[in-house]
């Protein structure tokens, strides 16, 4: 499903974030990307979100070289990818419901369908009773769960998460990972960047360790 072929990413200023990284990810896989900060985890996710483009090498998604997509083609691509962020990136002045509905509104889904699917997504993360609350009225864990509901509401085949538990304590982190595990078990391909090795250890998942822009180890399940 996803293939990185000798991908190198140089940032302005000459920092080499990835060096000749090759990687194959099959559909339905759950993968933890780990490594020290600056090892290249985030860069891989940024490439997949098309926020950054490879300097060299190819990034293929479903056989398409998405590293070469034009600016016009990027929105349609991004709609197929669910994204979860460390700082959740919820819109403060909108309710949980409106935040989760945003991807569906962007995709042009009919209003009635939006209501149904947003409620289903909020139900899956256990926040159906808080749909009217703005993010600031929710706890950190709840905010992240709203972020996850938003990432899955459009039923993407791929979900990428950048340090999704970075701001949460152990108990809440486990809760979030459990959610990811549940989505993965219904077929969503999952790529999670985390530096929390103990948390990753608790799940049976492929683990890719990056170090200074190269793959140090890639251990399957």
């Amino acid at each position, binding site marked *: 499903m996803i293939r990185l072929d000798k991908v190198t990413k140089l940032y302005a200023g000459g920092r080499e974030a990835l060096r000749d990284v090759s990687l194959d990810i099959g559909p339905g896989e759950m993968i933890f990307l780990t490594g020290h900060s600056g090892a290249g985890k985030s860069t891989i996710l940024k490439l997949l979100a098309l*926020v950054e483009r490879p300097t060299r090498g190819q990034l293929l998604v479903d056989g398409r070289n998405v590293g070469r997509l034009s600016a016009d083609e990027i*929105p349609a691509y991004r709609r197929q990818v669910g994204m979860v962020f460390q700082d959740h*990136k919820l819109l403060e002045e909108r309710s949980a419901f409106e935040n989760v509905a945003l991807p569906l509104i962007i995709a042009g889904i009919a209003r009635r369908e939006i209501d149904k699917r947003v409620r289903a997504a909020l139900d899956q993360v256990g926040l159906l009773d808080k749909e009217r609350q703005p993010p600031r009225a929710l706890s950190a864990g709840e905010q992240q769960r709203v972020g996850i509901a938003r990432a899955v509401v459009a039923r993407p085949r791929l979900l990428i998460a950048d340090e999704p538990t970075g701001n949460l304590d152990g108990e809440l982190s486990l809760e979030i990972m459990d959610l990811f595990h549940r989505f993965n078990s219904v077929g969503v391909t999952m790529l999670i960047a985390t530096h929390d090795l103990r948390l990753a250890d608790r799940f049976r998942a492929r683990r890719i360790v990056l170090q200074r822009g190269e793959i140090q180890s890639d251990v399957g399940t």
Partner: protein
Amino acid sequence: MKELLTRHVQNALGALGQLARQPVATGLTVAVIAIALALPASLQVLVQGAQRIAGNWDSIRDFSVYLKPGTDLASARRLAREVSDHPAIATAELISADQALEDFRSDPAFGEALQALKENPLPHTLSVRPESAATAESLVEFKVELAGRPDVDLVQLDTQWLQRLGAILDVIRRTVWMVGGLLVGAVIVIIGNTIRLDIQNRRQEIEVSKLLGATDAFVRRPFLYIGLWYGAMGGLASLLILLAGFAILAAPLERLIALYGGDYGGLGLEPATATLVLAGGVGSGLIGAWLAVARHLSDIEPSV
């Protein structure tokens, strides 16, 4: 298709709702736009009024045609008829030499002096009033034509004055368009700047929307609708300002025009002017929004 329409309605209402949530800021912006639009519109209406009053000043363009002494009365009558048939001329009244002499005789200042004359020294005269719509050029042309006729001695038409009057009206008309253009430009800048600030305030929302796969058109649309609403509300408010202005001016204007023998005839907001004000508001709203969006939206790319 239906979805797209629904989306546009949602965007339009959403933009309106956003403006309603900050009534003070919205009200101030709308007021500035309204005043800027009301200025050229009221100038335009004043020019229309001035033209109507000038139309009642037909006598200021009256002129006299003196016929050669010895021209017989029949050909003088024929000429009077011919002149009054000219498209630029409203009326041409013949004052015969005898009639003129009578008039002078009844005037005590001239009475005695005229008694001494054996013959009538006065020529036949035409007193001519042009159509109010006649241009200065057409009158000058007609004057040359008349002066060339064998039985005409002199045409006393102050062409310079006519040309000056035309030139003054031209200057005023152009000034109105220029002031109008400048103020519409100001409205575009005001709306553009307001929307630029709005884009900055909603930077996070734009970034997140782009990350979730929003197209540029999707991100752009709400701002264009905000510009449209600003323009439309500013246009409507400026119409209210104009109507209030006319209500205040109605009584004294009526008196003024009546003093010049004119007909007030409901000087005020004509549908064409009102449409122009509204269209100017909406148009400059959209243009201002478009400029702001084109300039600033592409700067915002998500950085995770």
